[in-house]
């Protein structure tokens, strides 16, 4: 496919179904989107001590993120310099050396070669003339504990990539009595048979809840919500809105903000969004950290629901607080990982409630995500049809208002502004051949 043909797949109000179903386009995406932009790698709380590491697959490539003895965070390719084996199979752990199982070459957490068995058979010229370390991932970007990597040596700078979404990270960390979040209480790991875009788009889709999640929105309009310090869920008191019969959705009270680089965030429509901040046990801790005045400012800033870092990462900032990472496996298979977060220093009952709410909301056995996964798979099957060719992303097109930042577009919750921002960047990347 040439650049003109690729460009024609994305139009203002629609995209061609091939962008979800064509294996050749998927291969090109790995090269031109995933290997060029910033991908979420891990949270530093997953590797708190020297020697701690996590392994992951990014854009189909095996990677280790490890904390070395000098406390540096290193992103390395998980591939022995000698004959190519993975040097580590565990998802996480602690080690001073990664030793290859094949011929015993060993590497430090910095990637530096630590030893070669029976080295006498190599000439000094060979040993000194070649790079025999674990290769470093070209770029690593860190913001307040969130670690991203780029597989390309150049491209959009990390500070520019993260600019629009700092607001969500900052607000989340401000709501921790110690200014940190921790991802150490388990990870939900699952897959669906559908294209990766279906999950990243879902992070800013407030059109779908009354329909996809009809079985958790009862006749009386009730839906599961997290409550502070309980068993992790309660029913919200929401009036029946008869979604099929009205022109406006309850979720239009939320807003979508679309940005360059495919970035977007979704705000929360729930008026109870700051209710949690009123719980005395927790509020007192926040006052002790910030003071009343700053806390009032934090309350006003507590309006983001999801920050969507295109193309792989959704940070759930309020309510069901978690990290959600997607990893494309093939054009029609995607892995999803969900780490519930703890707000460091917050009451244990609150953190337990966040974690338990992820069980019922974001897991593969949950009340909510199971609907989404089923619908993603139905989309993948449906899009095999030869007609119609197009997927419509036309809601609210041209009706957005400008936002605070340059190129920011502010839309109502059900508008497809976030998806359009994603595809605009997709088109930009996919039609650039260099």
């Amino acid at each position: 496919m040439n650049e003109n043909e690729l460009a024609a797949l994305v139009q203002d109000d629609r995209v061609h179904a091939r962008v979800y179903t064509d294996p050749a386009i998927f291969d090109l995406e790995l090269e031109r989107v995933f290997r060029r932009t910033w991908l979420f790698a891990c949270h530093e709380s997953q590797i708190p001590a020297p020697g701690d590491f996590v392994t992951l697959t990014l854009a189909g490539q095996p990677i280790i993120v490890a904390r070395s003895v000098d406390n540096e965070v290193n992103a390395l390719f998980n591939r022995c310099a000698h004959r190519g084996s993975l040097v580590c199979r565990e998802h996480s752990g602690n080690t001073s050396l990664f030793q290859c199982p094949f011929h015993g070459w060993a590497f430090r957490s910095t990637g530096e070669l630590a030893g070669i068995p029976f080295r006498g058979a190599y000439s000094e010229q060979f040993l000194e003339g070649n790079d025999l370390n674990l290769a470093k991932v070209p770029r690593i970007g860190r913001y307040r504990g969130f670690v991203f990597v780029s597989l390309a040596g150049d491209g959009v700078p990390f500070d520019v990539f993260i600019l629009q979404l700092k607001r969500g990270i900052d607000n989340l960390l401000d709501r921790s009595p110690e200014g940190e979040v921790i991802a150490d209480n388990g990870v939900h790991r699952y897959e669906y048979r559908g294209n990766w875009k279906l999950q990243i788009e879902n992070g800013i889709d407030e059109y779908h809840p009354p329909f996809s999640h009809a079985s958790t929105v009862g006749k009386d309009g009730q839906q599961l919500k997290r409550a502070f310090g309980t068993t992790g869920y309660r029913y919200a008191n929401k009036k029946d809105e008869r979604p099929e019969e009205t022109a406006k959705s309850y979720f239009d009270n939320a807003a979508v903000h679309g940005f360059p680089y495919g970035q977007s965030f979704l705000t929360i429509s729930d008026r109870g969004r700051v209710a949690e901040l009123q719980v005395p046990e927790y509020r007192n801790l926040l006052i002790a950290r910030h003071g009343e005045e700053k806390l009032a400012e934090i309350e006003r800033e507590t309006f983001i629901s999801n920050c969507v870092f295109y193309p792989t990462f959704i940070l759930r900032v309020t309510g069901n607080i978690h990290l959600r990472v997607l990893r494309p496996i093939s054009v029609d298979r995607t892995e999803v990982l969900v780490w519930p977060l703890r707000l460091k220093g917050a009451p244990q009952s609150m953190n337990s409630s966040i974690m338990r709410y992820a069980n019922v909301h974001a897991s593969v056995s949950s009340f909510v995500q199971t609907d989404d996964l089923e619908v993603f798979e139905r989309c993948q099957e449906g899009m095999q049809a030869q007609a119609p060719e197009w997927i419509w992303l036309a809601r609210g097109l041209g009706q957005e208002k400008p936002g605070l930042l340059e190129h920011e577009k502010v839309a109502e919750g059900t508008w497809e502004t976030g998806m359009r921002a994603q595809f605009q960047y997709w088109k930009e990347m996919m039609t650039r051949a260099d």
Partner: protein
Amino acid sequence: MQAQSIQPIQSRLVPRRLAPQPIQEFLFFEAQLLNERRFEEWLELLADDISYWVPLRRDQTDAEQEASLFYDDRELLTSRLKRLRHPKMWSQLPPANATRLVSNITLDAGYESNGTVHSQFIMCEFRAREQRVFGGAYEHQLRRTDDGFRIVKKTVRLVNCEAMLSNLAVPF
């Protein structure tokens, strides 16, 4: 290597005794209700203080501070089963058809009227176009009542709980 007699190994590795017939029959009955999707009747077998737990990690011992696949009290489990009957529960349209084979039903060494009933299970499930096989260990804590046994705690340890799973809707 020194040869060892079989008996010491057996007593060391199998310190459990076979569960008496009423307990075995109860576990078979429970599996039958789930196999036949008689979820409301299954609920009647559960104590009011039921804890239904499917850990997410192989050696997991805590569900309060660590994520789980299922960690349900009666209220949550009731909602879950009610949802299975909802006409728009997309991931069960069409519904899954499953069979559970329960075996190796044994009791903790010191089991009196309480303690853990251990068993192994294989669950074969078919939905839409796909057949899946799950397997693992059940751990039941039972309470004797005038109306038969009630399940106080059921833990399901899947052999592949750490795998990249796909949708799970029906209790094991």
